[in-house]
């Protein structure tokens, strides 16, 4: 489902080149729940951004559902994201000028779904915000905003769900609820979930754990068999 081949990402920092990801190989099959952990600056978010096609690698290739996305044009990447990928961000990233319901509706409208209203309502209800669907993000708590973001991520029935520190901006109790919701929906909809977190507690719930350090994969409890299977 997700495949990275010798992916390296460097960025310029003043006159120097900084390596964020260093020669990473990775394969994640469909339906797997993978947690990526590591210290700050280890390259976790960069990994997610490359998988989502939000950024391109400096070298190496990224494949998503058998499609090489690392050299795709921006509009093609947008189409791919709209069709295959749902993303949950640490900072929620709801559109402030839209209500909770409209935020969920937008990906469906972008994908030209014929009658998205009912689906959007169902998703809002599924995350427990049916009563607050007409509220704007600024009128919702952090936990509520993240629930809307999760509903939005599932809007187009994606086969891949990417979550970048989804509980990072929430307190422990709210974080736990959001994580449970994410995992429940993931199981129900059978999506491939790539979760980036620095909380070992959450990572333990995953099918597979990958540890990054200084841009390299230093631990992958199922790396070798999956990779061999793929190749």
């Amino acid at each position, binding site marked *: 489902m997700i495949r990275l081949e010798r992916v390296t990402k460097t960025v310029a920092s003043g006159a120097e080149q900084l390596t964020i990801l260093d020669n990473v190989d990775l394969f994640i099959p469909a339906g797997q729940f993978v947690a990526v952990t590591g210290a700050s600056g280890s390259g976790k978010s960069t990994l997610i951004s490359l998988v989502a096609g939000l*950024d391109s690698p400096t070298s190496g290739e990224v494949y998503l559902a058998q499609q090489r996305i690392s050299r795709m044009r921006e509009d093609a990447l947008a189409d791919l994201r709209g069709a295959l990928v749902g993303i949950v961000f640490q900072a929620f990233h709801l559109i402030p000028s839209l209500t909770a319901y409209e935020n969920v509706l937008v990906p469906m409208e972008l994908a030209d779904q014929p009658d998205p209203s009912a689906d959007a309502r169902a998703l809002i209800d599924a995350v427990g915000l049916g009563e607050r669907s007409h509220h704007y993000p600024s009128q919702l708590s952090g936990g509520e905003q993240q629930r809307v973001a999760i509903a939005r991520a599932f809007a187009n029935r994606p086969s891949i769900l990417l979550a970048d520190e989804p509980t990072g901006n929430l307190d422990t109790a709210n974080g736990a609820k959001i994580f449970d919701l994410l995992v429940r929906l993931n199981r129900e909809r059978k999506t491939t979930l790539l979760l980036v977190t620095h909380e070992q507690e959450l990572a333990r719930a995953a099918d597979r754990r990958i540890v990054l350090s200084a841009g390299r994969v230093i631990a992958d409890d199922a790396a070798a068999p999956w990779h061999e299977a793929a190749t």
Partner: protein
Amino acid sequence: MRFIVAMAWREVRASWRRLMLFFLCIALGVGATVSLRSFTRVFWGSLARDSRMLLSADVRIESGEAWTAEQGDIFARQSAAYGVSGQTRLLETQTVARAANDPEARPVLVELKGIEAGFPLRGEFRLAGRLRYSHDLVAGGGALVSGSLLERLHVGIGDRIIVGGAPLTVRGAIERMPGNALNFSPLPRVAADYQEVEAAGLTGFGSRVRYSWLFNVPDGQERAFTQALWSEYGDRRIRGSIGSFHYIENWLSQSLSNIDGFLSLIGLAILVLGGIGIASVTRVFVQQRVRTVAILKSLGGRNRRVIGAYVALVFALSLAGSLLGLVVAKAITTGFAGYTSARLPLDVDPRLSPLACVQGVAVGVLVALLFALPPLLEIRDVKPILVLRQDAAVGRRRIDWLKIAAQVLLAAAVAALAGWQAGTYRDAALFVGAVAATAIVLNGAGATLMGVLARVHRPASRSSPQVGRASGGRRRSFVLRQGIGSLHRPGNQTRVTMFTIGLGALFVIAVRLFQVNVQHEYMLDLGALSADMFLIDVQPDQRAPVEAALQRLGATAVTLLPLSRARLVGLRRDPLNPNRVPANRIGGEFRVTHKPELGSNETILKGEFWPPSPSSRPEVSVETGLAEWLKLHVGDVLVFEMAGRRLDVPVTSIRQEDRRVRSLASLVRSDIVFRPGSLDALPHTYVGGARGPADGPARARLQNEVLAEFPGLTLVDALDDIEEVRRRIDDVSAGVSVLGGFVLACGILILVGAVAMTKMQRLYEAAVLKTLGAKRRVLLRITVVEYGVLGLLAGAIGSAASIGVTWALSRFGNRPLPWALHPWINVAGAVLTAAVVIVVGVLATFDVAARKPLAILRDT
């Protein structure tokens, strides 16, 4: 499509307050453009409809002399040939009217019109109190007079007045009289019976009478009839003027071309200013929506669809703004129509032209889309990675061909619109060229400023690391460094802001320069007039006693000039003058005078004016209008017949006389001036002027005593007429100022938009500075430094450019416009631009400084 429409609607709903500026720019631009176009169309339509009324006939023949039997024969023959359906005569002269029974009332100079029973051939004689006009009202010693005359003479309907010595009974008050199109004289009108005016001796020697013969001609025959009359006049060397109502249209068109040129410029300026305002607002809006755009892209939004949503937003707003603009246009047009109808002999309909409305809305939407397009294209540069990395810069393409194409399209469209608005592509090319040059200079200046400041600022920062310490000297330095630093820090808006402010200043100051130049054209320094009383028919033996009486009764600056009549019977050209004119231009009678020195309102254009000493060898100075009519050069010889004597007089100078108060100046004016010494032996009377006492009773006493002592003399008090002229000039100035005010309003909107562009950036900086301990006062002072530098530089460049733009349009434009340098306007324009920018910046910063820093830091 569903997404595009839904997203556009949601953005309007969420941001309508922020987009109000956009909305206002469109509404104001469309309102002004539609009203100007509608007004021009309706005005010219009224002119075409009423031009026959303005002439009171289809064809009018004028002469400075009484009709001859020969002329009567010509008119009869041609009338029969062309099937003329009606004809009548009229005569016009200026004379003095007095109240018959009120010796205290001051005499008033009036325009007396002698009319026959057939008058008017076209149009309607409109009288006060819904009195229906018939010739019976003026027959048998009756008179119809302007309402203003009733007030000034303190008389009413039924009272008797003395007009030029003839007693008349007032039988009605004139509201509108046909046939006054070519006469915007401030003097009150008096209409009386033609025969009675002639019989009263008002057309005798020394009188300045204009005789007119009016005809109604079958439709379409006017030009042919006029041509036939011209032909006969030419064959028989008869002098006079012949014109159809078409001439009225042309004459008024030419007379109003300066105003029309000014209106076109206003339309252009508002159009482009509105566009710049839209570009500013859109740019700010896009900057505010960068995160939203990144989110949409991360959710699967293609560039085309995201841009489409914002284009739809611009379209909806511009359409709504344009429709509001029509409401604004209706209000403006109604006001203008009332204003104009009250001041011109025309009924101007206040309706909006449907074509102008459609064009206005189309132009409003087009301008909005075109100017919004370059900032909207920046959406393409927003990378979806921004949702993960806030520090990721918005990408920039090395060469963005699409953006370049959009800018070229914008320039071409503005040029096309400018040409359409100005009615000439030559003006449009000049206009767009000048604006483009200014834009390049502004861009260059912005880049240079940033470069220079960065270089100057760097060592200061290194040498003073402890910025922000509490000592007064240090704080000033901190404020200065922060203010200047804001102009060149990464992510600053210096170039864009300077570009916008500079162009805004250019348009506002350019329109102001045109406004002042156009107003000056209609302006006259009434305070500098040497006389406010005029004397006519002073006999030679009365000269000294009249002068003495005037001085005794408080008049000053008494000047009397001799006036003789001379018939021009021939013209001998200088060998170097190849010009020729039709024979009928020679043969007329002229009033001639002599004087030793030029008047203060006269300038020599060619040749030399004689020394003050008298000479028996005659020579003349000819006014430039007459010189052009006869195509004279210095050295030509005019052959006059004066009191039976032939006099060959060389032209030694051609002079220009400032005649902006024609109706008053004509009382004592002569186109041909002789050198003193050569006219002494000829019969002559004296005319002249004096400045009367300012005090009302003393003024009335002077007039009444002079008239009692010298009964044959005509003394005209022009004070009220000068006031009337002043009022009319004020009217024109007020109208022009209202239009200039529109441009100013647009300019201020743009400044607000330009400053608002930088607000987002300052929000964050202000929050950081506040958390570090900066007080609101410090933030405001930083703003003053930042915007002071920006406003002054942009204002100075815009102001300097306005000189070039106005000069180029005046000098090389399709319609030559008056132009003069007014340095104080340019200096004031630059300073005011800086002041407005500072004020707007400070007001915006108040809001920024008042917000809690935590909320801002959290949001960003």
